[in-house]
Structures are given as C-alpha cells and as structure tokens.
C-alpha cells in the first residue's frame, strides 16, 4: 500500500546543508496500523510530509498504491499536530468536515450523510454548528479526525496528533483511533515521539534514529487486538515492549551524539 524506498531529505540552508533524513526504507501494508517513533527532532514531520507529497524528497521515493508520490495523492488524508492551525476558523465544525468533499461529485444527501456519520464516529454529533475555536483542544482534534475519515482515505497519516492535548484527552483519542481503525479498515501511519503511545497503538512500531534519520528497528507489537488503557498498559508484555523501545531510542540518541561532537 505504502512504500518508502531510500528516502533522503536535505534542507539547503544559506550557509550549510542540514541532512534531516539520510536513508529510510519501510513499507506499510494495506490495513496496517504502523507507528513511527523516534527521538525528538529526528525528522519525523519531514518524513510524514514527504509521504504525504507535501515535500519533495532529495533522493529516493515514496510509492502509494503502485504509483510514485510526487504531489499529494488522492486517497490520503492527513491529521496535523497543530489542530488549531489546520482547521478553518471561519467555518463551522460541519463545514470544516464538508469542505474537502465538495469537489467530489457526491449527491448533497450523500455528502450530508458522510459528514454526519464522521462527526458521530468521533463523538461530536452535537456540535455541528459550533466554530472550532469554541471547542477544547481535544474536541478540535476530533473535528480534524472526522474531516479525515469523512474523506474516506485509503491511508490516514497522523503527525503527532495528540502532542498538544492533555494526558486524559490523549488516552481517549488513542482509543478512538484504535476503534476507527478497526471499524473502517483504513491503513494508518502514526508518527509520535511518545513511546507508550506508539506501543499501545501500533501493530508494528518502526523505531527511527536521531537525525540524520535511518530506521533503527522494526518491531511487531504482539499485544492482543482488543486493547484498553487500563489492562493493556498493565500487561507484562506491554512493559517489556515499552522498555525495549525506550532502550533503542536512548541508544539512538547516544549514537547520534558521536557525529555531532566530531562534525
């Protein structure tokens, strides 16, 4: 479904070049929920923008449904971390969800049904006519998620979507993503710096090194499909996996320190 091959991204600065991503190769199969986790500042957002077709890679390519991604492809929806800047503040919640559907040739009733179902699916059936800025941060991110699923994407890309909400809201939203993923059968690529979140959510976790980024390890999360905050997080296996990812990321950070010190 999604294939990243030898991806490299170098930012050209005025004086110097910054190599954000050195060489990334991984695939995401149809229907998978994959989490990308890495130390902060490891080029996760850069990677996601390349996958979404918002940023052109320096070398390598992203393939989506058998085609190279050169610009944002049809069938991909993105949920950004900055929900406050990604929702349209002059549109109501409903209109926000509806806007991307307008260019599709849907009948009005069909479009209305999609909007209603999506908002109901994220638990916002009663705020259609509010403006996003009248809602709490967590609810705003729910609107962004509703907009993404109303778009009926094959792949849902999420860029640290819960980094800016409080811990309780975050737990609710994590469960929401698991639930939507299972219900809709959509492929999800979820970027986060939160190790717990990655292990809790993912079927597979791809651990990245610090920038310039490469894949450090791919880890299958063999936790039961049915997960909940209380029990899953208490499982010995969860702790084990979490500890392993933690260790890898610590090592990734230290590994990065050497070239920084000498270079």
């Amino acid at each position, binding site marked *: 479904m999604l294939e990243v091959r030898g991806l490299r991204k170098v930012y050209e600065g005025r004086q110097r070049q910054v190599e954000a991503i050195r060489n990334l190769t991984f695939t995401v199969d149809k229907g998978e929920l994959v989490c990308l986790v890495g130390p902060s500042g490891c080029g996760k957002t850069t990677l996601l923008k390349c996958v*979404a077709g918002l940023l052109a890679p320096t070398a390598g390519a992203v393939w989506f449904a058998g085609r190279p991604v050169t610009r*944002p492809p049809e069938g*991909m929806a*993105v949920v950004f971390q900055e929900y406050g*800047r990604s929702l349209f*503040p002059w549109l109501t919640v409903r209109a926000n969800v509806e806007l991307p559907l307008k*260019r599709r040739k849907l009948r009005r009733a069909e479009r209305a049904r999609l909007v209603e179902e999506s908002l109901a699916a994220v638990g916002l059936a009663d705020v259609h006519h509010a*403006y996003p800025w*009248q809602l709490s941060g967590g609810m705003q991110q729910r609107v962004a998620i509703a*907009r993404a699923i109303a778009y009926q994407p094959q792949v849902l890309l999420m860029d640290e979507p819960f980094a800016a909400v409080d811990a309780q809201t975050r737990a609710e939203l994590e469960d929401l993503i698991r639930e939507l993923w299972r219900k809709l059968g959509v492929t999800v690529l979820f970027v986060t710096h939160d190790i717990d979140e990655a292990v809790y959510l993912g079927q597979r976790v791809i651990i990245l090194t610090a920038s310039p980024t490469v894949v450090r390890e791919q880890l299958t999360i063999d936790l039961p499909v049915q997960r909940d905050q209380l029990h899953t997080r208490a499982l010995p296996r969860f702790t084990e996996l979490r500890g392993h990812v933690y260790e890898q990321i610590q090592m990734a950070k230290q590994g990065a320190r050497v070239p920084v010190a000498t270079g």
Partner: protein
Amino acid sequence: MIRLLRRLGYALALPVLLLVVWWITTDDSENFYLPPLRTILRAFAETWTLERFQADVLPSLARFAAGYALAGVVGVTVGLLIGGLRWLRALLEPVLEFFRAIPPPVLVPVIMLFAGIDHTMKVVVIAVGAVWPILLNTVEGVRSVDEVLVDTCRAYQLRRFARLRHVILPAASPQIVTGLRQALSIGIILMVISEMFASSNGLGYTIIEFQRSFAIPEMWSGILLLGLIGFALSVLFRAVENRVLAWYHGLRRAQRSS
C-alpha cells in the same frame, strides 16, 4: 440595558464636552471667521435642507461609493493575484511601494487631464487613492496565510479556485478589512478634494463656494456635516465588519482567554 447605557455614556461624554467648550468659548465671539457655535448650528439647519441634500450631498456620496467600490474590487483582485504569485510579487512590489508613497491629491490635476472634469474624474481620483491600502493589505494577508492551513488544502486536494474562495480569501479577510478601513478615510478626503478642483456640485464644492463668498457660518456647518458623514460611514463599516469577521473576533477572544 444598563451596560448599553453606560457604553453610550462613555461614547458621548467627550463629544458633548467638546461641544460645550466650543459653545462657551465662542459664545461672545466677534471674530468674523470664528462665529459662535449657536450661529453655526442655525446656519446648519437653514443650509442643509432636503433639496440641498439631493443637489450636493447625494452626488458626493454616490461618487464616493462608486470610487470606493472600484478600489475594493481592483484592490482585492489584484492583491490576491500578487499575493499568490511569488514572481509577480517580486516584480511589482518596489513599484507598488513607490505609487503608494505618492500623496493621492497631487494626482487630481493629472487625472483631470485624462478623465476630464466630470463624474468619471472624481470616481477615478477616489479609486486611485483608496486602492493602495486595500491592495497592499490584501497582498500581506494572502502572504501570511498559515502554512499548516496551506498544507491542509494541498493534502485534501483543494484546487486553485476552491482554495482561493474557501481558504485564501477568508484567511486574508481580516487584513483586507484593515485595508478597507484605511481606504474609507482616504476615500472621503479625496471625495472632498476632487470636488474642490473642478465641480459644479458636491460637498467639497459647496464648502469652497461658501468660503469664497464669505458665508462663514455656512462653511463651518459644511465641515460639521462632513465630520458627521465620516462618523456615520465608520459606524456603518464597523457594523458590517462585526458581521463579516465575527469568526475572527471570536477566535481572537478564545486565544486571549486560553
């Protein structure tokens, strides 16, 4: 209700005070050029009859409306283009800054040469002067559209026209409104000035005529009327703005309180 009265009290206190001061200080004025306010107000009632409104005030306002509307349409359209196309912006920006720096009144004689001395000239003068703040603010508004918003549009495949209409235009609208507000006062100034040059009716023409025929209280009453018209227009503007930008003011309030 009480809050409304209080606000009204705050709004009216200073104007009333100024009028009282004006009234008292000029009450026994013998100065021919500075008649008592009493005399001016009497002249006001006698001068600005319905007939005169139709003959002088309405033509002025009609020309103002036409010029302002023209400036708005041209300013916003061209501003959207320049703001959206980087190469066009690099090409035009220095020239725009130059034109903006020219005080519009000096263009009146020049425009008279091209557009004659009739309605067209006055409408063109108003438009040429008022277009700059609208144009430059629109460019700035388009330029400062949040990049996450732009990425969102691209990711959801909003095509050029939809993006312009549903995203760029509303996102730039607070800045566009700022430009329109600045253009409002410039437009009124140019409305008056254009009529002082070559005209047979209009507010500016009438005031100059009063001055030339030494009808001093009437001249003052004309200035007072101009002030009132400017005030009424800005109140009207604010009412429209509060409707159009309700989302923006709400957003700002929400951001401040968080």
